[in-house]
Each structure stands twice: as C-alpha cells, then as structure tokens.
C-alpha cells in the first residue's frame, strides 16, 4: 500500500471515530457505545495524531491533505468551486 493510501486510511478511521465520540455527546439518545480497537498504534492515532490534526487551521490542513493525496503532490486538472 502506498504511503498516501496508508496515511489516508488510518487518518480517516481515527478522525471519524473522534467525530463520532463528539456526536454521541451531542445526540446521546440516538447513539450507542461504539466498538473501539485497543493497542499502541490506535493510541498513537487517537491521542497524538487526532489532536495535532485538529489543532492546525483548516486552510493549512487542507493544503497538507492535498499534497499527500497525489503522487508527487501533482493534482490533475479539475474545475475549482469557491
């Protein structure tokens, strides 16, 4: 698996889990307790990656996501919507 693919897969999983935990506190009646994997690697993603990711402003974070999304950071041509 390419680095970009690996990074995105893990980042997505743990960012979604963190968002889900937040929504559980906002909509407690509509949710049940989710299953969470345990282990050192999950600890890293949950306790280090997620807080660091969310501390970076969205405009910078978006640039990082786009840079890691394409081989060599080169984006194919697509129309941009403001």
């Amino acid at each position, binding site marked *: 698996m*390419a680095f*970009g*693919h690996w*990074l*995105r897969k893990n980042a*997505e999983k743990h*960012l*979604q889990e*963190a*968002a*889900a935990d*937040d*929504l*559980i506190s906002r*909509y407690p*009646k*509509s*949710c*049940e*307790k*989710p*299953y969470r994997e345990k282990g050192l690697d999950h600890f890293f993603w949950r306790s280090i990656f997620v807080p660091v*990711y*969310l501390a970076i402003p*969205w405009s910078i*974070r*978006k640039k990082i*996501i*786009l840079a*890691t*999304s*394409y*081989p060599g950071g080169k984006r*194919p*041509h*697509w*129309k*941009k*919507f*403001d």
Partner: protein
Amino acid sequence: MAQENLRIIVIGGGAGGISAASTSKGLLPDASITLFTEFEDVAYSPCGIPFVLGKEIPNFDNLFLQTAEHYAKIGIDLRLQTKVTGINLEDRTVSVGSEAFEWDRLVIATGFEYDEPDIPGIDLDGIKYVKNIRRAMEFDKELETMKKAVVVCATPLGIEMAGNLAHRGLETHLIDEGGWLMSEVADPDIMEPVKESLEKMGAQMHFGTKVLEFKGEGGKVKSVVTSEGEIECDVVVIAAHKKPNNHLSSEAGIELGATGGILVDDHMKTSVDNVFAAGDCTEIVHGVTDIPIQGLSGSHAYSQGRIAGANAAGDDRAYDPVFIPWGMVGGQVQIGGVSLGETLHKALGIPHVVAFSMGISRARYYPGVTSMRVKLIADPATHKVLGAQMAGGEGIKERADFLAFVIKRGVTLDELAWMENVYSPPIGALMEPIALAAQAGLRELSK
C-alpha cells in the same frame, strides 16, 4: 489517424463501461468498439437486487435495462464472460489469456470489489456478497428455506438488506461496530428514525459490536461470534465497504491516488495518454473540500462513462467535481443529503454551523402528510451552504438534488431563508422545510 477508424476497447460492463461504449459508438458509428466483461450480463441495475431479494420487486427480469442483442445491433462488440488479464501500455493491447487485442483508446471501468474482512470462517458456504445478478438469483432460491440472517456492516447496502430480509420474513440481525447506522457518513439524529423503522419491521440491531468469527458445520455457516455474544444464522450477508478494483491498472503502471482509485482529470483521462477511466475504479474531486474521494453512485459512474466515452471518441467534454446528492429508503423512512454531513465536517475539522428544522411534506390537513427533518450545514463566515442531511416520509430525493445545485452555485443561508416554494396541499406545505432550516441557521449565527 482518422477518428472513424479508431479502435476503442472498454474494460467493464457496469454503468461506467456500458455508457462509455454507447457514447463512443453514438459519436463515431464507424469506429470499432469492443467491451470486455468477465460477467454473464451487462446493463442491469445491481442497486435493485436487495429489493428483489426482499420481494418488494417481483423478479430479477425487472432489473435489466437492455439486452446483449441490443448492443450487438448498435455495433458494439460485446465480449461477455471474458476476463481481461493484462493491459500493455507500450504495445497498446489488452490481453485475454494468450490472445491480444489492439486499441487506439482504452476506457477502464473495472468498478469495485468488496473489502473482504479478515475474519476466521469467512470462506464458509452461506456467506454472501451482493453484487452479481446471477449469484443473487441463486441466493434468492436458497432464501426460500432460510429462517435466520445476519447482515454485517450498517452501510447503505447493509441497511437495505436488513430491511428487505426482515420484510421477507427472516429473523434478521444487523451488526456494526459503530454507534448508529451508517455512522461513518450519516448523522445519528438523521438515522434514528431509520433504526426505529427497521426495528418495527422486526430487524434486530447490534451496534458497537465486532464480528470475531463465523462458525460452521459441514462447511456451512451456522453462527456468528461477536464481541457481544453468538448469533445463530442460516446465512450471512457481508455489506462491507467497497474498494476500487484496480489490479489491472496498477500492474500496468497507471497512476493511482491516495484512495486507491485511478487518478483522472476532469476529462476522465488517466496518467497515460489515450487511456481513460470511469466509475468506481476512479477517484474524483469533491466540490466543497477539493479533496479526491472514491466510491460514488451508479449515476456518477454512468455520467463519467459518458464523458470518458465521448473523449475517447475525440470529443472535448469535462466532468465537474462532485457534490454528491444521495438518498435511499431505510426501513420505511426516506433519508438523504448532499456533500458532507455534520459527522464528516467534524472529522475533517471544517469550520461549520448546524441548523435544523422539522417541517411537513404536504399541507398539514392533507392525507399522507409526513414530517421531515432538515439539517443544513453552513460556513459561519460566508453563510454558504456546505452540506445537508434529511429524513422523512417523502420528498427527500428532490430536495437533495436541489440542495446539490444550491451548494454548487454557492447559495447562502440568507438566500435560502427567503426562497420561493411550491404550495399545493397534496404535494407541498406552505412553509418549505429547507427555508425553515436556513432561517434557524441565521438565528444561530446571530447569537
């Protein structure tokens, strides 16, 4: 090279492949168009399979849109049950075993495959995936003697299968690790009425539950061992996530993106000249976030196929980034939305404000009126709408389509709050629920 003598090869007979081949043929009637598919059929609606299995649709014949004879008649050389085993970019050939076929333009529409979970017992008989119509026909016959079903993963397909198997009269269990239905993309408040509806139909929900093992007897699945206990069953449906089927493209050296989908531009061109791709095997840019995403709907694949087919035939057509209006029926409830919901806005950390309304679908006194929850997500700085999710009894699909256009055009909450709307007692209420949600959003922002 004269365009009319072009040799265009399409790999894949799903929505993307068949629309690419048909569009190329329509634009260049004299071109040689060959479509390879490893399956027995083309041009049917796989999305309809759960509803035939649930006896909502009487039979599988209803799902076919066109016959193989139709494509032969319009001059497309359809090679059914023919698996392409390699793509050679230097020689411009595809191989089928030892035989090679030359192309001037290639369209790859190899679709998706399920992300098969790594669980002991996954190879037992009676563990099913819903994709191919012939396998679904066989499954339909087997279901006649089955009484208990387990559906793994509360994805859209998992929800449809759980509802339809319960409708068919089977004792049905839906297992998911998340805390609510479709928890990775949909919001819990939107999915709650779906959960209630499925439970009312008899389906049993098991949230926060991990599947640990499939146990069998004589090679056939008999129970599912989970983190919360064991569930007996006659059949298991795996409604796992889809991943792009890109073995051929990857081996050939065509560039893939971070999602695992083929990198394409807005002309559906890949990293290799004269090679195009369309549908679930590609990754497409999201209109709001600009981030490439993968795994869209059949209607996206169909449209992308038309663009790829047209450009392969020498035309110059572009495909816009996607805003993804979606909708479905879960249990007896319609749900839908556009772009990202609250869950994914939070996950990505995009600044947003959330606004709700509870509206009605018709005049409050008109028979058949149903309530509708509309949630709008907007940019707090510009007030532009970024996403929406809805649940109700009717009118969800049309609102999702409308809101997709709203977001694409950069419409703000201020504009939506005072939108004009149809008022006619049998089909529309005086107060449009979308406008009510936008007004609630403006109140929230003024606090």
